[in-house]
């Protein structure tokens, strides 16, 4: 088994998923099988190979050569930004207490 029940519970906590007992059992088996398959990447000795995080070699795309060109633009009005909010209080998203 590539992944234990204990690890599944730990990862679920990290991912903020409250899994049901059925899901924990099923995912332990499925993730085990998938991890075994993807572990194939470890067969290769790649100590000299640099990692690729992105297919394009772009740099400084957000920066402008001339800071004067950085013009402010209007953002969404608050009522629009809150249009899909499950709960709002004033200009804040309302959530239950953290503890």
């Amino acid at each position, binding site marked *: 088994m590539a992944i234990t029940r204990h690890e599944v519970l730990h990862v679920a906590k990290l991912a903020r998923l409250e899994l049901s007992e059925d899901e924990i059992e099923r995912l332990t088996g499925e993730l085990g099988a998938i991890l075994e398959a993807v572990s194939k*990447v470890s067969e290769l000795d790649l100590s000299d190979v*640099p990692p690729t995080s992105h297919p394009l070699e772009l740099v400084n795309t957000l920066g402008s050569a001339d800071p004067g060109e950085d013009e402010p633009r209007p953002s969404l009005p608050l009522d629009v930004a809150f249009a899909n909010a499950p709960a709002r209080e004033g200009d804040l998203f309302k959530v*239950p207490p*953290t503890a």
Partner: protein
Amino acid sequence: MSIDTLRLTAEDALGLLERKEVSGAELHRAYLKAVAERDHELHCYLRTVEDAQGESVPIALKDVISTKGVETTAGSKILAGYVPVFDATVAARCRDVGLPVIGKTNTDEFAMGSSTENSAYGPSHNPWNPERVPGGSGGGTAAAVSGGLAPWGLGSDTGGSIKQPSALCGNVGLRPTYGTVSRYGVVAFASSLDQVGPVAKNVRDCARLYSIIAGKDAADPTTVDVPTVELPQAESLSGLRIGVPKEMNEAEGIEPGVTAAVQKAIELARELGADVAECELPRSVEYGLACYYLIAPAEASSNLARYDGVRYGLRVDADTYYEMVERTRDAGFGDEPKRRIMLGTYALSAGYYEAYYGQAQKVRTLIAREHAAAFETFDLLVSPTSPTVAFKLGEKAADPLAMYLSDLLTIPSCMAGLPGLNVPCGLSEGLPVGLQLIGPQLSENTLFRAGHALERALEFDPVPERLR
């Protein structure tokens, strides 16, 4: 006038509009009528847009593309009822040239899947045979185009979600070079791979739609300048060097009928004047799938962290914040997103990061280098798009690994940010077979030229036999 939506290409429709033989509103109505007649069987659309906004050729948009004022769910319950307050750049560009939206098309949840069976709203069906899947994740758009419910549409592709459904439904579909089409306002799955692209009935329509959506966008810093798109005219492939990667054409699991149709297309390319020779991509195919199923879930686990019940989407109430977030995510995500979030979180977690995610990033470098080496000798590479024709609904739904193999041949070039075009090249068991053309970055015009010449020579009829 009566409009045969099964046959009408976007170019035909533009001609009718130009000669004032039909109005944009009439075209839009004709497609809505076709949807009313056939979509109960195919389930391509999650919702339609009744008011035509624009006087040009109507379009279908995959439901991962934000449309202002029109519900956008990405096939997930966690976004049920979510109505975007802004348009994705690609939706805005379609609107700017007057393309009215017919509707939002079905997709595997968060574009994670190869059959649309992972949609929280039920699967779409293949117009060639409704007992078969249309492919995925963009099966809704592909089935709509082949079933005459849209002249063209947009999909999104992370590891094959445009090319594979196009292959299974007999469409022309382009996954563009990474960075040529804005991702702003597109529901994110794996950001270093996601790319929006066109699906159409022929290569010229595909090129035309690509020219509408492509180009640098200030709202997406990963976009680049794009060469002017040329609508293909040529019918000769003289001087074109085509490589046939052995591993991609002889991989285990490729059906004999698929191989036969692809071989025939390769022969035709030779007759049209192309220089065709075998080549190799030894590690791209062998390690591509494993590499993808580490990197894409890792990025997905990060991207999907935003669905927390706070700013939009589903919220399941609870006494504390963390309980609310965990219950919301358990109730809102289906099985496949949960699997990928778990897999990605594991691959990024302390103690496993280097062995899984770090190693996969290095494999990605190898894949990019192998392709770059092949393009020193060749202008294009060809292979089947999908190892199989459309499979039966339910056939692979219970086995995630079997489903993942559907993307074996589309994934490697995606990892390298390369463009890929699916061109239908024949039938096997009465179902379409797709030919995949892969080129170096920004080689879309070459792909269109080759695809157009082959399409002419192949004479594939894109209308499903049972609907003719």
